[in-house]
């Protein structure tokens, strides 16, 4: 099994920031993949599968967040996560 490592910096463009439901959505997406994901902001880290840790990062509008994924589908999980930091499209 090939171990990939992928990193990406995203900027929060949702005016509401990463609130409770957004954090739940991040965890739901990360769980669909096999790679381990760590989010970092201001030297604080959160595991991609832990809502409480993610909310503790206080990702507001304009915050820069570093996403790091390690595992067989590292790029794919980051591709799937990236839109979650943007303003939700009206459904």
């Amino acid at each position, binding site marked *: 099994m090939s171990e990939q490592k992928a990193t990406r910096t995203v900027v929060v463009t949702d005016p509401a*920031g990463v609130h409770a439901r957004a*954090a739940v*959505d991040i965890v*739901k997406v990360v769980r669909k993949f096999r790679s381990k994901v760590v989010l970092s902001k201001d030297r604080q880290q959160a595991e991609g599968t832990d809502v409480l840790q993610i*909310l*503790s990062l*206080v*990702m507001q509008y304009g915050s820069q967040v570093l996403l790091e994924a390690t595992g067989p589908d590292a790029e794919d999980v980051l591709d799937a996560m990236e839109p979650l930091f943007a303003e939700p499209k009206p459904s």
Partner: protein
Amino acid sequence: MKFADFVCPEAIRADLAAKDKEGAIREIVQALLDAGKIAPGEKDSIVKAILKREELGSTGIGRGVAVPHTKHPSVEHLLGAVAVSRQGVDFASLDGERVNLFFLLISPPDRPGDHLRALENISRQLRDDTFCRFLKQAKTAEEIKQLLNEADNNQFGP
């Protein structure tokens, strides 16, 4: 931000009677009304707004905790209520567990930062298993109030 900055002490409930999501939200918003924090005419509109947000995705964040919330033009600053349910409420949570612990937040539409900082405080404190367990076991509003005070004074966690 600390619990004391947004939790109304008079809107803490130790034993919710409601058995479903809508009932729990109604009961907690009623607690804020009884505490004189929201106007009687706004109650239904606030409950409806919170339920609408829940339809977009449950705020049951796992570990028996939910943070139902909404923005509402009738409030001037962030308002929070805390409630414990002994029997637990089915909240369609992330982990499928019933919810025993509720932090309900109502914020003014133009202050998303305060809302995030309150969520940060709640989530940081709840990462401490002892605090989380003590809160769920609390039998009176007074006990909950004390636990929140202790958390504000850094008596839990690292």
